[in-house]
Protein backbone atom coordinates (compact mmCIF):
# COMPACT_ATOMS: atom_id res chain seq x y z
CA UNK A 1 0.00 0.00 0.00
CA UNK A 2 0.99 3.61 -0.41
CA UNK A 3 3.11 5.07 2.37
CA UNK A 4 1.59 8.52 1.86
CA UNK A 5 -2.02 9.53 1.72
CA UNK A 6 -3.19 11.97 -0.93
CA UNK A 7 -4.95 15.24 -0.33
CA UNK A 8 -7.84 15.19 -2.75
CA UNK A 9 -11.58 15.71 -3.04
CA UNK A 10 -14.54 13.65 -4.23
CA UNK A 11 -16.91 16.60 -4.71
CA UNK A 12 -16.98 20.18 -6.06
CA UNK A 13 -13.47 20.58 -7.59
CA UNK A 14 -12.89 16.79 -7.79
CA UNK A 15 -9.12 16.69 -7.36
CA UNK A 16 -9.16 12.90 -6.92
CA UNK A 17 -6.69 11.00 -9.09
CA UNK A 18 -5.00 7.62 -9.23
CA UNK A 19 -1.23 7.17 -9.13
CA UNK A 20 0.43 4.78 -11.60
CA UNK A 21 0.57 2.23 -8.80
CA UNK A 22 -3.14 2.65 -8.03
CA UNK A 23 -4.02 2.20 -11.72
CA UNK A 24 -2.03 -1.01 -11.91
CA UNK A 25 -3.78 -2.55 -8.87
CA UNK A 26 -7.26 -1.41 -9.92
CA UNK A 27 -9.76 -4.26 -9.43
CA UNK A 28 -10.85 -4.62 -13.05
CA UNK A 29 -14.06 -6.67 -12.97
CA UNK A 30 -14.42 -8.22 -16.45
CA UNK A 31 -12.69 -11.57 -17.02
CA UNK A 32 -14.62 -12.18 -20.26
CA UNK A 33 -15.89 -10.20 -23.26
CA UNK A 34 -19.52 -10.33 -22.14
CA UNK A 35 -21.16 -9.39 -18.86
CA UNK A 36 -24.28 -10.66 -17.16
CA UNK A 37 -25.28 -10.81 -13.52
CA UNK A 38 -23.91 -13.85 -11.83
CA UNK A 39 -23.31 -14.94 -8.26
CA UNK A 40 -19.52 -14.80 -8.82
CA UNK A 41 -18.75 -15.31 -5.13
CA UNK A 42 -15.29 -16.58 -4.18
CA UNK A 43 -13.48 -17.06 -0.85
CA UNK A 44 -11.99 -13.79 0.47
CA UNK A 45 -8.49 -15.23 0.83
CA UNK A 46 -5.23 -13.29 0.76
CA UNK A 47 -4.48 -12.01 -2.73
CA UNK A 48 -1.14 -11.13 -4.31
CA UNK A 49 1.17 -8.67 -2.54
CA UNK A 50 0.12 -5.15 -3.50
CA UNK A 51 -3.34 -6.21 -4.74
CA UNK A 52 -6.57 -4.88 -3.25
CA UNK A 53 -7.14 -8.31 -1.67
CA UNK A 54 -3.75 -8.56 0.01
CA UNK A 55 -5.37 -7.76 3.35
CA UNK A 56 -8.77 -8.15 5.00
CA UNK A 57 -9.49 -4.43 4.46
CA UNK A 58 -7.61 -2.52 1.77
CA UNK A 59 -6.14 0.79 2.96
CA UNK A 60 -4.79 2.70 -0.05
CA UNK A 61 -3.53 6.14 -1.05
CA UNK A 62 -7.09 7.55 -0.85
CA UNK A 63 -7.66 6.50 2.77
CA UNK A 64 -7.50 9.86 4.54
CA UNK A 65 -9.37 11.78 1.83
CA UNK A 66 -12.13 9.15 1.70
CA UNK A 67 -12.61 9.20 5.47
CA UNK A 68 -12.90 12.98 5.29
CA UNK A 69 -15.47 12.78 2.49
CA UNK A 70 -17.42 10.27 4.57
CA UNK A 71 -17.41 12.69 7.50
CA UNK A 72 -18.77 15.51 5.35
CA UNK A 73 -21.59 13.31 4.04
CA UNK A 74 -22.53 12.13 7.55
CA UNK A 75 -22.60 15.71 8.83
CA UNK A 76 -24.89 16.80 6.01
CA UNK A 77 -27.18 13.78 6.34
CA UNK A 78 -27.03 11.86 9.65
CA UNK A 79 -29.51 9.34 8.15
CA UNK A 80 -26.58 7.72 6.33
CA UNK A 81 -25.92 5.90 9.58
CA UNK A 82 -28.69 3.66 10.90
CA UNK A 83 -28.69 0.85 13.43
CA UNK A 84 -31.78 -0.88 14.77
CA UNK A 85 -31.62 -1.49 18.53
CA UNK A 86 -31.19 -5.29 18.34
CA UNK A 87 -27.93 -4.89 16.39
CA UNK A 88 -25.68 -3.91 19.31
CA UNK A 89 -23.83 -7.27 19.48
CA UNK A 90 -23.17 -7.02 15.75
CA UNK A 91 -21.84 -3.48 16.25
CA UNK A 92 -19.21 -4.75 18.70
CA UNK A 93 -18.40 -7.64 16.38
CA UNK A 94 -17.75 -5.07 13.66
CA UNK A 95 -15.53 -2.96 15.86
CA UNK A 96 -13.48 -5.98 16.88
CA UNK A 97 -13.04 -7.26 13.31
CA UNK A 98 -11.97 -3.90 11.91
CA UNK A 99 -9.63 -2.97 14.77
CA UNK A 100 -7.94 -6.37 14.85
CA UNK A 101 -7.53 -6.60 11.08
CA UNK A 102 -6.22 -3.07 10.58
CA UNK A 103 -3.74 -3.25 13.48
CA UNK A 104 -2.42 -6.63 12.30
CA UNK A 105 -2.18 -5.72 8.61
CA UNK A 106 -0.95 -2.12 8.92
CA UNK A 107 0.98 -1.88 12.22
CA UNK A 108 2.70 1.31 11.01
CA UNK A 109 -0.69 3.08 10.96
CA UNK A 110 -2.94 1.38 13.50
CA UNK A 111 -2.49 -0.17 16.91
CA UNK A 112 -4.77 -2.00 19.33
CA UNK A 113 -3.82 -2.76 22.93
CA UNK A 114 -6.08 -4.88 25.10
CA UNK A 115 -5.97 -4.87 28.88
CA UNK A 116 -8.81 -7.22 29.72
CA UNK A 117 -11.91 -5.52 28.39
CA UNK A 118 -10.21 -2.11 28.38
CA UNK A 119 -8.95 -1.46 24.86
CA UNK A 120 -6.78 1.34 23.49
CA UNK A 121 -7.09 2.08 19.79
CA UNK A 122 -4.78 4.34 17.85
CA UNK A 123 -5.33 5.47 14.25
CA UNK A 124 -2.31 7.56 13.27
CA UNK A 125 -3.38 8.72 9.78
CA UNK A 126 -6.59 10.20 11.21
CA UNK A 127 -5.03 11.31 14.50
CA UNK A 128 -7.35 9.27 16.75
CA UNK A 129 -6.43 7.64 20.05
CA UNK A 130 -9.10 6.38 22.45
CA UNK A 131 -9.37 4.05 25.41
CA UNK A 132 -12.72 2.37 26.03
CA UNK A 133 -14.35 -0.69 27.55
CA UNK A 134 -15.28 -3.34 25.01
CA UNK A 135 -19.03 -3.97 25.21
CA UNK A 136 -19.84 -0.68 26.95
CA UNK A 137 -21.09 1.92 24.45
CA UNK A 138 -21.06 4.67 27.04
CA UNK A 139 -17.24 4.61 26.96
CA UNK A 140 -17.13 5.65 23.27
CA UNK A 141 -18.14 9.02 21.82
CA UNK A 142 -20.58 7.29 19.45
CA UNK A 143 -21.99 3.83 18.79
CA UNK A 144 -19.21 1.29 18.04
CA UNK A 145 -20.34 0.67 14.44
CA UNK A 146 -20.47 4.41 13.75
CA UNK A 147 -17.08 4.91 15.42
CA UNK A 148 -15.21 2.35 13.31
CA UNK A 149 -17.37 2.71 10.19
CA UNK A 150 -15.90 6.19 9.87
CA UNK A 151 -12.34 4.84 10.04
CA UNK A 152 -12.50 2.29 7.23
CA UNK A 153 -12.94 3.09 3.51
CA UNK A 154 -16.19 1.92 1.97
CA UNK A 155 -19.75 1.28 3.06
CA UNK A 156 -20.89 -1.30 5.60
CA UNK A 157 -24.20 -3.01 6.14
CA UNK A 158 -24.87 -5.40 9.03
CA UNK A 159 -27.29 -8.16 8.04
CA UNK A 160 -29.34 -9.89 10.73
CA UNK A 161 -29.93 -13.59 10.04
CA UNK A 162 -33.50 -14.71 10.90
CA UNK A 163 -36.56 -16.28 9.24
CA UNK A 164 -34.23 -18.02 6.77
CA UNK A 165 -33.25 -14.72 5.23
CA UNK A 166 -31.10 -11.65 5.87
CA UNK A 167 -32.32 -8.25 7.05
CA UNK A 168 -30.34 -5.04 6.48
CA UNK A 169 -30.73 -3.83 10.06
CA UNK A 170 -27.75 -1.47 10.33
CA UNK A 171 -25.56 0.46 7.92
CA UNK A 172 -23.11 3.29 7.38
CA UNK A 173 -23.42 4.26 3.75
CA UNK A 174 -21.79 7.28 2.11
CA UNK A 175 -20.34 5.99 -1.18
CA UNK A 176 -23.28 4.14 -2.66
CA UNK A 177 -24.25 3.57 -6.26
CA UNK A 178 -27.72 5.08 -6.05
CA UNK A 179 -29.39 3.17 -3.23
CA UNK A 180 -30.74 4.60 -0.02
CA UNK A 181 -29.94 3.23 3.43
CA UNK A 182 -32.71 5.27 5.04
CA UNK A 183 -35.18 3.62 2.65
CA UNK A 184 -33.69 0.12 2.78
CA UNK A 185 -33.02 -0.23 6.50
CA UNK A 186 -34.94 -3.16 7.97
CA UNK A 187 -35.58 -4.74 4.57
CA UNK A 188 -35.26 -8.43 3.84
CA UNK A 189 -32.94 -9.69 1.11
CA UNK A 190 -35.74 -10.03 -1.46
CA UNK A 191 -37.24 -6.62 -0.76
CA UNK A 192 -33.85 -5.00 -0.98
CA UNK A 193 -33.03 -6.51 -4.36
CA UNK A 194 -36.48 -5.86 -5.82
CA UNK A 195 -35.36 -3.28 -8.41
CA UNK A 196 -32.48 -5.26 -9.94
CA UNK A 197 -33.64 -6.12 -13.48
CA UNK A 198 -33.18 -9.63 -14.88
CA UNK A 199 -31.40 -10.84 -11.77
CA UNK A 200 -34.55 -12.12 -10.06
CA UNK A 201 -35.68 -13.87 -13.22
CA UNK A 202 -32.33 -15.60 -13.47
CA UNK A 203 -32.63 -16.83 -9.88
CA UNK A 204 -29.32 -15.14 -9.11
CA UNK A 205 -30.55 -13.47 -5.94
CA UNK A 206 -32.02 -16.67 -4.47
CA UNK A 207 -28.82 -18.58 -5.15
CA UNK A 208 -26.69 -15.84 -3.65
CA UNK A 209 -28.90 -15.77 -0.55
CA UNK A 210 -28.65 -19.54 -0.12
CA UNK A 211 -24.90 -19.25 -0.33
CA UNK A 212 -24.77 -16.46 2.26
CA UNK A 213 -27.06 -18.18 4.76
CA UNK A 214 -24.38 -20.90 4.89
CA UNK A 215 -21.53 -18.43 5.35
CA UNK A 216 -19.23 -19.64 8.15
CA UNK A 217 -17.27 -17.63 10.69
CA UNK A 218 -13.63 -17.43 9.58
CA UNK A 219 -14.42 -18.04 5.89
CA UNK A 220 -15.36 -14.66 4.40
CA UNK A 221 -16.28 -14.34 0.73
CA UNK A 222 -16.03 -11.60 -1.90
CA UNK A 223 -17.32 -10.56 -5.29
CA UNK A 224 -16.96 -7.57 -7.59
CA UNK A 225 -19.80 -5.40 -8.83
CA UNK A 226 -19.55 -2.35 -11.05
CA UNK A 227 -21.27 0.67 -12.59
CA UNK A 228 -20.18 3.97 -14.14
CA UNK A 229 -20.15 7.38 -12.45
CA UNK A 230 -19.64 10.87 -13.83
CA UNK A 231 -16.77 12.56 -11.96
CA UNK A 232 -14.94 10.79 -9.13
CA UNK A 233 -17.91 11.22 -6.80
CA UNK A 234 -18.30 8.80 -3.89
CA UNK A 235 -21.69 10.10 -2.77
CA UNK A 236 -23.93 9.14 -5.69
CA UNK A 237 -26.88 8.65 -3.35
CA UNK A 238 -30.51 8.99 -4.39
CA UNK A 239 -30.79 11.56 -1.58
CA UNK A 240 -28.41 13.86 -3.45
CA UNK A 241 -29.50 12.91 -6.97
CA UNK A 242 -30.52 16.53 -7.69
CA UNK A 243 -26.85 17.46 -7.12
CA UNK A 244 -25.21 14.86 -9.35
CA UNK A 245 -27.88 13.69 -11.81
CA UNK A 246 -27.33 16.67 -14.10
CA UNK A 247 -23.63 15.81 -14.51
CA UNK A 248 -24.70 13.19 -17.03
CA UNK A 249 -25.64 15.99 -19.42
CA UNK A 250 -22.08 17.34 -19.39
CA UNK A 251 -20.50 14.30 -21.07
CA UNK A 252 -19.41 14.81 -24.70
CA UNK A 253 -16.97 13.18 -27.11
CA UNK A 254 -14.13 15.46 -25.95
CA UNK A 255 -14.42 14.97 -22.19
CA UNK A 256 -15.81 11.42 -21.96
CA UNK A 257 -12.49 9.84 -20.96
CA UNK A 258 -11.99 12.34 -18.13
CA UNK A 259 -15.53 12.49 -16.79
CA UNK A 260 -16.72 8.89 -17.05
CA UNK A 261 -15.36 6.67 -14.30
CA UNK A 262 -15.60 2.94 -14.02
CA UNK A 263 -16.86 2.40 -10.47
CA UNK A 264 -15.99 -1.01 -9.06
CA UNK A 265 -17.27 -2.32 -5.77
CA UNK A 266 -15.23 -4.89 -3.93
CA UNK A 267 -17.93 -6.54 -1.86
CA UNK A 268 -16.86 -8.73 1.03
CA UNK A 269 -19.02 -10.66 3.48
CA UNK A 270 -18.02 -11.91 6.91
CA UNK A 271 -20.00 -13.99 9.43
CA UNK A 272 -19.71 -12.28 12.81
CA UNK A 273 -19.06 -14.42 15.89
CA UNK A 274 -21.31 -13.08 18.70
CA UNK A 275 -24.35 -11.87 16.84
CA UNK A 276 -24.32 -14.43 14.01
CA UNK A 277 -24.99 -11.41 11.77
CA UNK A 278 -23.18 -10.91 8.46
CA UNK A 279 -21.04 -7.88 7.77
CA UNK A 280 -21.42 -6.75 4.17
CA UNK A 281 -18.66 -4.38 3.09
CA UNK A 282 -18.88 -2.44 -0.16
CA UNK A 283 -15.61 -0.77 -1.08
CA UNK A 284 -15.68 1.59 -4.05
CA UNK A 285 -12.80 2.07 -6.50
CA UNK A 286 -12.97 4.79 -9.16
CA UNK A 287 -10.93 5.14 -12.35
CA UNK A 288 -11.57 7.33 -15.38
CA UNK A 289 -11.52 5.83 -18.86
CA UNK A 290 -8.28 7.61 -19.72
CA UNK A 291 -6.36 6.02 -16.84
CA UNK A 292 -8.00 2.68 -17.45
CA UNK A 293 -6.78 2.70 -21.06
CA UNK A 294 -3.19 2.74 -19.74
CA UNK A 295 -3.55 -1.00 -20.24
CA UNK A 296 -4.82 -1.77 -23.74
CA UNK A 297 -6.07 -5.15 -22.59
CA UNK A 298 -8.52 -3.47 -20.22
CA UNK A 299 -9.64 -0.93 -22.85
CA UNK A 300 -10.36 -3.69 -25.37
CA UNK A 301 -12.20 -5.81 -22.84
CA UNK A 302 -14.26 -2.90 -21.55
CA UNK A 303 -15.18 -1.99 -25.13
CA UNK A 304 -16.50 -5.48 -25.84
CA UNK A 305 -18.38 -5.71 -22.56
CA UNK A 306 -20.07 -2.34 -23.07
CA UNK A 307 -20.88 -2.97 -26.72
CA UNK A 308 -22.82 -6.13 -25.85
CA UNK A 309 -24.50 -4.85 -22.66
CA UNK A 310 -28.23 -5.59 -22.27
CA UNK A 311 -30.27 -2.35 -22.55
CA UNK A 312 -32.10 -3.07 -19.26
CA UNK A 313 -28.80 -3.10 -17.43
CA UNK A 314 -27.61 0.09 -19.11
CA UNK A 315 -30.79 1.76 -17.92
CA UNK A 316 -30.64 0.28 -14.40
CA UNK A 317 -27.08 1.50 -13.98
CA UNK A 318 -28.10 4.99 -15.11
CA UNK A 319 -25.77 4.97 -18.14
CA UNK A 320 -28.27 5.40 -20.97
CA UNK A 321 -27.40 9.04 -21.71
CA UNK A 322 -23.65 8.70 -22.11
CA UNK A 323 -23.22 5.01 -22.91
CA UNK A 324 -22.81 5.43 -26.73
CA UNK A 325 -20.01 7.97 -26.12
CA UNK A 326 -18.21 5.46 -23.91
CA UNK A 327 -18.44 2.70 -26.52
CA UNK A 328 -17.24 5.09 -29.29
CA UNK A 329 -14.29 6.31 -27.26
CA UNK A 330 -13.17 2.77 -26.37
CA UNK A 331 -13.57 1.48 -29.95
CA UNK A 332 -10.25 2.93 -31.08
CA UNK A 333 -8.35 0.61 -28.73
CA UNK A 334 -10.03 -2.54 -29.95
CA UNK A 335 -8.23 -4.34 -32.79
CA UNK A 336 -10.52 -7.35 -32.39
CA UNK A 337 -7.70 -9.67 -31.31
CA UNK A 338 -8.77 -12.49 -28.96
CA UNK A 339 -8.13 -11.89 -25.25
CA UNK A 340 -7.52 -14.71 -22.81
CA UNK A 341 -9.86 -15.10 -19.86
CA UNK A 342 -8.91 -13.08 -16.76
CA UNK A 343 -8.86 -9.58 -15.33
CA UNK A 344 -5.08 -9.01 -15.32
CA UNK A 345 -3.75 -5.73 -16.73
CA UNK A 346 -0.91 -7.07 -18.86
Amino acid sequence: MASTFKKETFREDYTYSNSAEAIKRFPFPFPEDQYMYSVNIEPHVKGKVGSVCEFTFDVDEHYVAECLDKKITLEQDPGRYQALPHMMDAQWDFLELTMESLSQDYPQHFSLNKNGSVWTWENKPLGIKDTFTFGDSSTLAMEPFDYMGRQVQGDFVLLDHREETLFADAGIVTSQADWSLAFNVGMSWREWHGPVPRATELGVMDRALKHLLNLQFGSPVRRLNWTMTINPRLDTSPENYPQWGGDRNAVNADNVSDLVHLRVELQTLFRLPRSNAIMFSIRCYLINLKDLSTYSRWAKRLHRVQKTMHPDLIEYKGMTKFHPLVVDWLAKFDDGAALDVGTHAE
Partner: protein
Amino acid sequence: MMERGYWIKSKPIYTSLVWHEKATSHLVVAQGQGGLAAIKLFQQMHPQQPVTTLYEHSDIDANFAITLKKVVPEDLHLLKSEQEVVSLLKRIMPTKRMGLRIYVAGSEGFIWAVAEAVKEFGIEDADIMKELTGTLARSIYCVHCKAITHNITTNIGKCSSCERMLFVRDHFSRHLGAYMGLMVDAESPGQLPEIEEIYP
Protein backbone atom coordinates in the same frame (compact mmCIF):
# COMPACT_ATOMS: atom_id res chain seq x y z
CA MET B 1 -45.07 1.21 -20.58
CA MET B 2 -44.93 -1.91 -18.51
CA GLU B 3 -43.09 -4.77 -20.08
CA ARG B 4 -44.91 -8.10 -20.23
CA GLY B 5 -44.04 -10.30 -17.31
CA TYR B 6 -42.96 -7.26 -15.34
CA TRP B 7 -43.69 -7.12 -11.64
CA ILE B 8 -42.39 -5.20 -8.69
CA LYS B 9 -40.56 -7.76 -6.61
CA SER B 10 -40.41 -5.68 -3.49
CA LYS B 11 -44.16 -5.05 -3.64
CA PRO B 12 -46.08 -7.46 -1.46
CA ILE B 13 -48.77 -9.65 -2.92
CA TYR B 14 -52.15 -9.09 -1.27
CA THR B 15 -54.72 -11.87 -1.04
CA SER B 16 -58.27 -12.35 0.23
CA LEU B 17 -58.66 -12.86 3.95
CA VAL B 18 -59.20 -16.46 5.10
CA TRP B 19 -59.18 -17.74 8.70
CA HIS B 20 -56.11 -19.61 9.90
CA GLU B 21 -57.60 -22.69 11.50
CA LYS B 22 -54.56 -23.44 13.66
CA ALA B 23 -54.50 -20.09 15.43
CA THR B 24 -55.01 -19.78 19.19
CA SER B 25 -56.69 -16.37 18.74
CA HIS B 26 -57.46 -13.89 15.96
CA LEU B 27 -57.14 -10.14 15.44
CA VAL B 28 -59.04 -8.54 12.55
CA VAL B 29 -58.11 -4.95 11.65
CA ALA B 30 -60.02 -3.17 8.89
CA GLN B 31 -60.46 0.31 7.49
CA GLY B 32 -63.08 1.86 5.21
CA GLN B 33 -63.92 -0.48 2.33
CA GLY B 34 -61.94 -3.12 4.20
CA GLY B 35 -65.08 -3.46 6.35
CA LEU B 36 -66.56 -5.52 3.53
CA ALA B 37 -63.58 -7.89 3.63
CA ALA B 38 -64.07 -8.26 7.40
CA ILE B 39 -67.78 -9.01 6.94
CA LYS B 40 -66.93 -11.66 4.33
CA LEU B 41 -64.46 -13.20 6.77
CA PHE B 42 -67.11 -13.54 9.51
CA GLN B 43 -69.56 -14.94 6.99
CA GLN B 44 -67.08 -17.74 6.17
CA MET B 45 -67.39 -18.84 9.79
CA HIS B 46 -67.13 -17.65 13.32
CA PRO B 47 -63.94 -19.28 14.59
CA GLN B 48 -63.71 -21.36 17.78
CA GLN B 49 -60.91 -19.22 19.17
CA PRO B 50 -61.29 -15.70 20.63
CA VAL B 51 -61.52 -12.89 18.04
CA THR B 52 -60.82 -9.17 18.47
CA THR B 53 -61.94 -6.79 15.69
CA LEU B 54 -60.90 -3.19 15.09
CA TYR B 55 -62.69 -1.16 12.44
CA GLU B 56 -61.83 2.38 11.42
CA HIS B 57 -64.47 4.11 9.33
CA SER B 58 -65.70 7.48 8.14
CA ASP B 59 -69.39 8.42 7.82
CA ILE B 60 -69.41 7.13 4.24
CA ASP B 61 -68.55 3.62 5.39
CA ALA B 62 -70.95 3.71 8.36
CA ASN B 63 -73.06 0.96 6.79
CA PHE B 64 -70.24 -1.54 7.11
CA ALA B 65 -70.03 -0.63 10.80
CA ILE B 66 -73.72 -1.38 11.26
CA THR B 67 -73.36 -4.75 9.53
CA LEU B 68 -70.18 -5.59 11.44
CA LYS B 69 -72.04 -5.02 14.73
CA LYS B 70 -74.46 -7.72 13.63
CA VAL B 71 -71.93 -10.30 12.38
CA VAL B 72 -69.16 -9.82 14.94
CA PRO B 73 -70.43 -11.35 18.17
CA GLU B 74 -67.70 -10.17 20.54
CA ASP B 75 -64.94 -7.64 21.15
CA LEU B 76 -65.61 -5.20 18.28
CA HIS B 77 -64.00 -1.74 18.45
CA LEU B 78 -65.20 1.06 16.15
CA LEU B 79 -62.61 3.79 15.65
CA LYS B 80 -62.40 7.13 13.88
CA SER B 81 -58.76 7.36 12.73
CA GLU B 82 -55.68 5.34 11.86
CA GLN B 83 -54.02 6.92 14.89
CA GLU B 84 -56.73 5.49 17.17
CA VAL B 85 -56.25 2.06 15.57
CA VAL B 86 -52.50 2.18 16.18
CA SER B 87 -52.85 3.27 19.82
CA LEU B 88 -55.45 0.63 20.56
CA LEU B 89 -53.22 -2.03 18.94
CA LYS B 90 -50.33 -1.00 21.16
CA ARG B 91 -52.59 -1.33 24.22
CA ILE B 92 -54.02 -4.76 23.41
CA MET B 93 -50.99 -6.45 21.87
CA PRO B 94 -49.25 -7.10 25.22
CA THR B 95 -52.28 -9.19 26.28
CA LYS B 96 -52.03 -11.46 23.23
CA ARG B 97 -50.37 -14.87 23.38
CA MET B 98 -48.40 -17.09 21.00
CA GLY B 99 -50.43 -18.38 18.08
CA LEU B 100 -52.25 -15.10 17.41
CA ARG B 101 -53.08 -14.54 13.74
CA ILE B 102 -53.66 -11.07 12.32
CA TYR B 103 -55.87 -10.14 9.35
CA VAL B 104 -55.72 -6.64 7.84
CA ALA B 105 -57.91 -5.09 5.13
CA GLY B 106 -57.65 -1.53 3.87
CA SER B 107 -55.52 0.79 1.77
CA GLU B 108 -51.86 -0.03 1.27
CA GLY B 109 -50.88 2.74 3.68
CA PHE B 110 -53.22 1.36 6.38
CA ILE B 111 -52.00 -2.22 5.95
CA TRP B 112 -48.39 -1.25 6.55
CA ALA B 113 -49.19 1.13 9.39
CA VAL B 114 -50.77 -1.85 11.19
CA ALA B 115 -47.81 -4.12 10.33
CA GLU B 116 -45.43 -1.51 11.72
CA ALA B 117 -47.47 -1.07 14.92
CA VAL B 118 -47.42 -4.79 15.80
CA LYS B 119 -43.81 -5.39 14.78
CA GLU B 120 -42.44 -4.38 18.18
CA PHE B 121 -44.50 -7.23 19.70
CA GLY B 122 -42.57 -9.78 17.67
CA ILE B 123 -45.16 -10.16 14.91
CA GLU B 124 -43.41 -10.80 11.61
CA ASP B 125 -44.76 -9.78 8.26
CA ALA B 126 -45.44 -13.41 7.34
CA ASP B 127 -47.85 -13.75 10.30
CA ILE B 128 -50.18 -11.09 8.89
CA MET B 129 -52.74 -11.79 6.15
CA LYS B 130 -53.44 -8.73 4.03
CA GLU B 131 -56.22 -7.68 1.68
CA LEU B 132 -55.95 -4.46 -0.34
CA THR B 133 -59.33 -2.72 -0.60
CA GLY B 134 -60.89 0.54 -1.70
CA THR B 135 -58.06 2.32 -3.45
CA LEU B 136 -54.85 1.61 -5.34
CA ALA B 137 -53.47 4.98 -4.22
CA ARG B 138 -49.84 4.84 -3.17
CA SER B 139 -47.76 6.41 -0.44
CA ILE B 140 -44.55 7.93 -1.73
CA TYR B 141 -41.40 8.44 0.34
CA CYS B 142 -39.42 11.46 -0.84
CA VAL B 143 -35.81 10.28 -0.75
CA HIS B 144 -34.59 13.90 -0.71
CA CYS B 145 -36.48 15.36 2.26
CA LYS B 146 -37.67 12.02 3.77
CA ALA B 147 -41.36 13.05 4.00
CA ILE B 148 -44.09 10.56 3.08
CA THR B 149 -46.98 11.79 0.94
CA HIS B 150 -50.12 9.64 1.04
CA ASN B 151 -52.88 8.88 -1.44
CA ILE B 152 -51.04 9.56 -4.67
CA THR B 153 -53.12 8.31 -7.58
CA THR B 154 -50.87 9.51 -10.41
CA ASN B 155 -47.63 8.23 -11.96
CA ILE B 156 -45.80 11.41 -10.88
CA GLY B 157 -46.62 13.01 -7.51
CA LYS B 158 -45.74 16.19 -5.67
CA CYS B 159 -43.94 15.84 -2.35
CA SER B 160 -46.16 17.40 0.31
CA SER B 161 -43.12 18.74 2.14
CA CYS B 162 -40.39 19.93 -0.30
CA GLU B 163 -42.82 20.18 -3.26
CA ARG B 164 -40.46 18.46 -5.68
CA MET B 165 -42.22 16.48 -8.40
CA LEU B 166 -41.34 12.84 -7.79
CA PHE B 167 -41.24 9.83 -10.06
CA VAL B 168 -41.78 6.55 -8.34
CA ARG B 169 -39.10 3.91 -8.40
CA ASP B 170 -40.30 0.29 -8.39
CA HIS B 171 -39.15 -0.20 -4.86
CA PHE B 172 -41.46 -0.65 -1.89
CA SER B 173 -40.48 -0.46 1.77
CA ARG B 174 -42.70 -2.44 4.14
CA HIS B 175 -41.07 -0.61 7.03
CA LEU B 176 -42.18 2.78 5.68
CA GLY B 177 -45.25 1.45 3.84
CA ALA B 178 -44.23 3.54 0.84
CA TYR B 179 -42.57 3.54 -2.57
CA MET B 180 -39.38 5.45 -3.21
CA GLY B 181 -39.84 8.78 -4.98
CA LEU B 182 -37.05 10.72 -6.69
CA MET B 183 -37.05 14.18 -8.20
CA VAL B 184 -38.31 13.63 -11.73
CA ASP B 185 -36.63 16.57 -13.44
CA ALA B 186 -33.23 16.60 -11.66
CA GLU B 187 -31.40 15.95 -14.93
CA SER B 188 -33.52 18.25 -17.06
CA PRO B 189 -35.13 20.96 -14.88
CA GLY B 190 -38.73 21.80 -15.73
CA GLN B 191 -39.26 18.87 -18.07
CA LEU B 192 -42.09 16.73 -16.70
CA PRO B 193 -43.55 13.66 -18.32
CA GLU B 194 -47.32 13.60 -18.80
CA ILE B 195 -49.11 13.13 -15.49
CA GLU B 196 -51.69 10.37 -15.59
CA GLU B 197 -54.02 8.93 -12.99
CA ILE B 198 -53.17 5.22 -13.06
CA TYR B 199 -53.68 4.34 -9.37
CA PRO B 200 -57.34 5.31 -8.80
